[in-house]
């Protein structure tokens, strides 16, 4: 099972991961800070922390350091960039951008460029979530994620907020976004491919070098 975790790692964390049978976990950490274990690193770039120009510049460098690169678009321009750039693996759906960005045409572009979309289900954990859920429902009416690999997350910043991927899938099932595409194997396949890219076994897209000697 694959789950994303964005908070600090402690001994308690390892216990919880073992309890939830999470194997492996996507940690948003620098590789040097990664604890021992079956963890994978991901980097989420957001326009809140850096402008689009800097995101573009830093992508090539970051591609070599992280297993997965995600972008959380805040403007339509970033959303369009994230959909077409080969270095980006995951695009997090931002319901605030609405149907003008996340429409059927955008979904088609994501399929063409082999992207994973990430749905944030953290609003479910609020007491009153109808206000936050409505824009997501509007997007899902036209944005059919049937052919795009889906990663579900509740953006856990505390260990106690971690949930099993099956649990998140049960939440996604209420919205109709849990299907075969939301299986964690898609994410693990992408991670395998990226590890090969980092090692240099895939010099160009579609070309794989076997038996390369260091």
């Amino acid at each position, binding site marked *: 099972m694959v789950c994303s975790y964005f908070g600090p790692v402690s001994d308690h964390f390892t*216990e*919880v991961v073992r*309890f*939830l*049978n999470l194997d492996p976990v996507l940690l948003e950490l620098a590789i040097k800070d990664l604890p021992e274990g079956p963890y994978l690193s991901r980097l989420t770039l957001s326009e809140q922390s850096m402008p689009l120009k800097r995101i573009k510049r830093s992508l090539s460098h970051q591609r070599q350091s992280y297993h997965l690169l995600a972008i959380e678009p805040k403007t339509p321009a970033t959303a369009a960039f994230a959909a077409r750039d080969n270095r980006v693996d995951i695009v997090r759906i931002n319901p605030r951008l609405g149907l003008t960005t996340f429409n059927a045409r955008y979904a088609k572009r994501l399929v063409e460029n082999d992207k994973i979309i990430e749905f944030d289900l953290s609003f*479910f*954990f609020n*007491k009153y979530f109808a206000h936050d859920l409505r824009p997501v429902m509007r997007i899902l009416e036209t944005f059919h994620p049937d052919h795009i690999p889906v990663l579900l997350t509740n953006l856990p910043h505390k260990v*106690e907020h*971690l*949930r*099993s991927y*099956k*649990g*998140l899938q*049960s*939440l996604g*099932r*209420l919205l109709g976004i849990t299907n075969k595409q939301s299986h964690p194997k898609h994410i693990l396949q992408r991670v395998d491919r990226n590890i090969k890219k980092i090692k240099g076994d895939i010099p160009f897209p579609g070309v794989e070098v076997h038996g390369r000697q260091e």
Partner: protein
Amino acid sequence: MVVKNERKRYLLVEFFGQIPDKRDLVYALRNNVATLGGQLALAQSSLHVVDIMGSFAIIRATHLSRDLVEASIQLLKYNNTIPVVRSVSGTIAKTRKFHQSLISQS
């Protein structure tokens, strides 16, 4: 007159951290199901906490409301307790058997 019994699902849930008592668990689950699906869904779910055995609980629901109940278990907020659904079965005997096998493994 033949009345067909509604199909049931028994969910075996394990808790990490403080284990809620039966009354609190029932109250929290009912609240969550009502928040997600409304009072009608709560009535249709036939939600019942059958038993609490150590860190495990057996929760009964109708097979049609299984997704809703499973989702409401994930939303449980009780002293930072982490719930996880270990198995879903159609009979309570099978659920208890699975529980025994989990205990014997650990």
